[in-house]
């Protein structure tokens, strides 16, 4: 009894002490990092997180953002929305307020979007998130930089059109969409249906229930119906299972095109040579172990013993994705500092302005060491995406190599769709469209 009492008092004391700790110098810019290193999608989440953290460490090694160092803190949420929300709540107000949130999860993105207006924290969703959040007139705090799901779907069709020799040649062809049965996967359907109607091809919709390891029936249907091309919208284990099943049913991998969340080393490494010929879209970047920024990270972070993950991971696809996500956050802070005071810590509101006025041109990209990795990104109030281009890379058995030129998504069709969806959201939530969009250039 006495020992137990002692233990309880000790535990309470330590917990109280631990709670008191954790408040750091207020002169740092705080970046909470929501990660999932455990759970169903652990390998993907870990690689992304390592890239994200390494870039923040690189920024600090280079002196921070105009002298302001970045204070980052991880919070593990295992891809569960309620745990993600708890992480969000826990970290949003610490250390002077979070500068930006980047939840690599659709569920948390949707829930956090609801809170962004009250909490005043911008949410950057580099290549994912609500497709309609590209419309900054309604979604003031969301930034689906680099492209959203509709851009991907559109470019996937354009790629196959190019392969067959023109959009008109798609008539009569059959495309199969294998998608993760969740909001992430279902976002593919509207633009694809739109294109199917316009060009006259048939779209087979094959949902795969979470987590996606059970795809035998989907591939049996593919073997039965023999679609000309397959579009894969998976994540994590679903991609691996899809490729294995494709090999088992004998579907040629070079007729499969994944979206940019289905095209990383983790998806093909297990399958290796069998996946040769499989290609996927790139979120502008592919695998860049030789880019200047990767070399910088190796020399300034890993050589000093500060690396987050294994050294061999630097430059891999998801690593680059995490790294670029962090880059956007940092550039948003930098741009905000240009307006609100260089060398000062920025609030969420100010970082939001910075993200809305990003101008990452060739010169800036070169300074960051990102030439050849991504194209210039310019955001504005009306356009929170900044770019809508992609290219295709293919797996040759050992690595991903970029095999095509740049594709531009058909924004003539997508912009009205985005606007209509955003308007629908605005009416549902009784939000007024922003009027200050026209005033800002």
């Amino acid at each position, binding site marked *: 009894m006495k020992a137990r009492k002692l233990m309880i008092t000790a535990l309470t004391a330590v917990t109280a002490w631990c709670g008191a700790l954790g408040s750091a110098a207020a002169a740092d810019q705080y970046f909470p990092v929501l990660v999932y290193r455990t759970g169903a999608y652990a390998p993907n989440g870990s690689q992304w997180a390592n890239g994200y953290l390494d870039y923040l460490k690189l920024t600090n090694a280079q002196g921070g953002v105009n002298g302001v160092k970045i204070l980052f803190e991880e919070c593990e949420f295992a891809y569960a929305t309620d745990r993600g929300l708890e992480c969000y709540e826990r970290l949003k107000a610490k250390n002077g307020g979070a500068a930006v949130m980047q939840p690599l999860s659709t569920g948390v993105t*949707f829930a956090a979007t609801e809170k962004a207006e009250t909490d005043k924290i911008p949410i950057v969703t580099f290549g994912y998130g609500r497709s309609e959040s590209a419309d900054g007139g309604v979604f003031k705090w969301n930034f689906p930089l680099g492209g959203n799901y509709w851009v991907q779907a559109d470019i996937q069709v354009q790629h196959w059109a190019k392969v067959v020799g023109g959009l008109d040649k798609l008539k009569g062809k059959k495309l199969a969409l294998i998608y993760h049965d969740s909001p992430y996967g279902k976002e593919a359907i509207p633009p694809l249906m739109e294109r199917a109607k316009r060009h006259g091809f048939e779209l087979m919709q094959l949902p795969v229930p979470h987590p996606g390891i059970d795809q035998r029936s989907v591939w049996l249907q593919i073997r039965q119906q023999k679609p000309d091309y397959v579009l894969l919208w998976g994540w994590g284990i679903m991609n691996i299972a899809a490729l294995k099943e494709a090999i088992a049913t004998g579907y040629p991998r070079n007729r499969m095109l994944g979206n940019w969340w289905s095209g990383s080393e983790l998806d093909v490494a297990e399958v290796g040579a069998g996946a040769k010929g499989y290609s996927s879209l790139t979120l502008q970047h592919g695998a860049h172990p030789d880019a200047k920024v990767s070399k910088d990270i190796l020399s300034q972070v890993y050589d000093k013993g500060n690396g987050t993950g294994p050294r061999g991971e630097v430059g891999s696809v998801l690593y680059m994705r995490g790294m670029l996500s962090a880059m956007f956050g940092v550039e948003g802070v930098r741009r905000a500092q240009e307006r609100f005071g260089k060398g000062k810590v920025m609030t969420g509101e100010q970082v939001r302005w910075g993200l809305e006025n990003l101008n990452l041109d060739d010169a800036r990209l070169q300074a960051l060491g990102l030439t050849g990795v991504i194209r210039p990104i310019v955001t504005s109030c009306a356009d929170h995406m900044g770019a809508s281009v992609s290219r295709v890379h293919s797996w040759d058995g050992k690595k991903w190599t970029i095999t095509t030129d740049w594709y531009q998504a058909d924004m003539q069709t997508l912009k009205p769709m985005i606007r209509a*969806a955003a308007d629908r959201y605005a009416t549902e939530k009784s939000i007024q469209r922003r009027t200050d969009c026209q005033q800002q250039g």
Partner: protein
Amino acid sequence: MIYRENGQFKTSYRADQQIFPILQDRAFIVLLLAMAFVGVPMMASDYLFQAVLLPFVILSLAALGVNILVGYCGQISLGSGAFMAVGAYMAYNAYVRIEGMPLVAAMLVGGASATLVGIAFGIPSLRVKGLYLAVATLAAQFFCDWVFLRVGWFTNHSSSGTVSVAHLQVLNWRVDTPVEKYLFCLAFLVVFGLMAKNLVRSSIGREWMAIRDMDVAAAVIGIRPMYAKLSAFAVSSFIVGVAGALWGFVYLGSWEPAAFSIDRSFQLLFMVIIGGLGSVMGSLFGAAFIVVLPIVLDHFLSGLGAVSGLHISTALVAHVQSMVFGALIVWFLIVEPHGLAKLWSVGKQKLRIWPFPH
């Protein structure tokens, strides 16, 4: 010494049949309610409301519903997540499709729809029990998962399948801030808790307990099994459905079907088992254990890492947290299989004769 009912004589049946016949119990409950409604809002931070108290209150309401079915009526149900989903989606549809629908009414509509679904999937309980019934309710879980993904009507034909709700308000009171959300859900919990407590003390509650203990014998003495079992499913699903509506509307704000997956069903079942089958307080204890303990462990382990100077990766913290949590559950069930509520009642018993040991 303090907790004696000496001298507290009842002179009317009404006084004798109150929920809390002992004065000290009544005082404790009044204090607890005062703490919950007044004290906590004054002391707790926004983070505590949003991340700890809100899920705790909503999930204890859901656990209460599940406890009625599993604890009081003995029908194992692994479909509670589905019933929460039905409650949430039907409440959403009522709220969005009907102009000017009050929030509370929409939630009750959600609960009523969950009742209908619960009764439908409770029909196998008239034929089978135990593990077999668990599988039948699993069918409910997965079927509802699929329906909300596939049938566009439920999500108001949104392209991505996620739904969200706008500003919540009751009469003229906007439920915006974390404190208001907490009070809103707490009000539901108190009302439903009172309702549940009275139900289980009444004849229907005794029918449920008779079915749980020995259903054949109960049928022999004249309790209609169909009525008792289906009413348990109905009441339980209603409460779970309202909890689901609260979870979606108040806590998440914007949700997808995965928020009510099989993991949620298991979580509710664990709450009920750990908290104590067949006890209203048990649902609260179980919810506190399952919701609050992982967060406390998380803070404690990260704090430990910070204190000791070791760089503990968040993955390791998450793994250790799962292991400790699992070990605690196992240890706990070995030490006290009847759950936390049994510890509570044992504590009260000891308090009655305190300071004497027996």
